[in-house]
């Protein structure tokens, strides 16, 4: 049994079943609750695999609209597999968006525009002053690894080659540094 299927007894399944058997307005509350449960998960999938908050939003909206439509129409024949369906829809949508992103990238290169896509929306972003303060508290080696990792999101081997470190060493430093950075930022930047 895979990890998604183990969600069989979850609230998501109860809601999916109720949507599948209800008609029209009767399912509205269940749909809203299911959306609140699943939309953030679809968006996280998009953030991880698309690296762009706007693309992640597009993915989330598309996948949730598709999921609710399939449930309402009865075409999602096994509501107990709702999580597998959403994950599958996320994967397919990412493939489609990547094809679109490649086209967009070609256009950007052609016109010489360079953009660093935002990973998260401005309204939920951490204050950069606090992050900067916590970054400056990291030892030099850790700060360099974190900066190069987050700025370019490269694998450990690439970051290590740039700093004279092995990939394994980068991973160890990165684990420690990001955990420290997170603790510092979440504690308001007052812990050392």
């Amino acid at each position: 049994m895979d990890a998604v299927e183990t969600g069989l007894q979850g609230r998501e399944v109860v809601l999916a079943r109720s949507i599948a058997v209800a008609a029209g307005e009767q399912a509205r509350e269940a749909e809203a609750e299911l959306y609140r449960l699943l939309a953030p998960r679809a968006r996280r999938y998009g953030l991880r695999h698309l690296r762009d908050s706007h693309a992640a939003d597009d993915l989330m909206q598309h996948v949730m609209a598709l999921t609710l439509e399939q449930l309402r129409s009865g075409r999602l024949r096994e509501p107990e597999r709702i999580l597998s369906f959403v994950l599958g829809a996320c994967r397919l949508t990412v493939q489609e968006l990547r094809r679109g992103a490649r086209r967009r990238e070609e256009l950007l290169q052609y016109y010489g525009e360079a953009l660093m896509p935002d990973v998260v929306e401005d309204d939920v972003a951490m204050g950069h002053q606090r992050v900067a303060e916590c970054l400056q508290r990291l030892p030099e080696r850790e700060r360099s690894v974190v900066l190069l990792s987050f700025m370019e999101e490269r694998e450990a081997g690439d970051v290590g080659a740039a700093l004279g470190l092995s990939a394994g060493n980068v991973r160890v430093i990165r684990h420690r540094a990001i955990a420290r950075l997170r603790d510092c930022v979440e504690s308001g930047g007052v812990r050392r």
Partner: protein
Amino acid sequence: MSVLHDTHVPFDRLVDYWFGDMGDADIATIDEHLMHCDSCGAQLESVALLTQGTRDAFAAGEVGAVVSADFVARLVERDVRVREYRVGPGGSVHCTVAPEDVVLISRLEAPLHGVGRLDLVAEMPEGATEHFPDVPFDAASGELLLASRVARVRPLPAHDFRLRLFAVADTGPQEIAEYVFHHRPWQ
């Protein structure tokens, strides 16, 4: 790797997942886990927030760090405004920061061959010193690239400051290079 329904993914594994430091099968397994585990999802979101926060802090000129030549080259390719000063051992340079500069790089040439650990000491004009032990470096490159905190450097009045590099061995630290920067405000 298997991720059971009621077993959370360790934070280190989520970091590896975020950066792609694992195989496709492991990524797929964590994808599945995150589809039902909001606790781990919140952990992953914290990594996403730190990613954006770090980018914003660097773009605001609030982060200083050792970086690589490739990293600087890629910033230039993206049309980020980079001001760079190259200085050799024992050398000095006149420097400033323009209003439009986003990144300020000091490219310190140094005899790094055979160096195991490198310490950096910054001497400010008032006599204050700041010690940065064990900075990362690529010995083969023969240089150390420092990204300065532009937002802090830009408003400074005219002043001179020194950087010293020390190779640290079992026998103790040995100075291998010194650099003098004559900073002037942009005019």
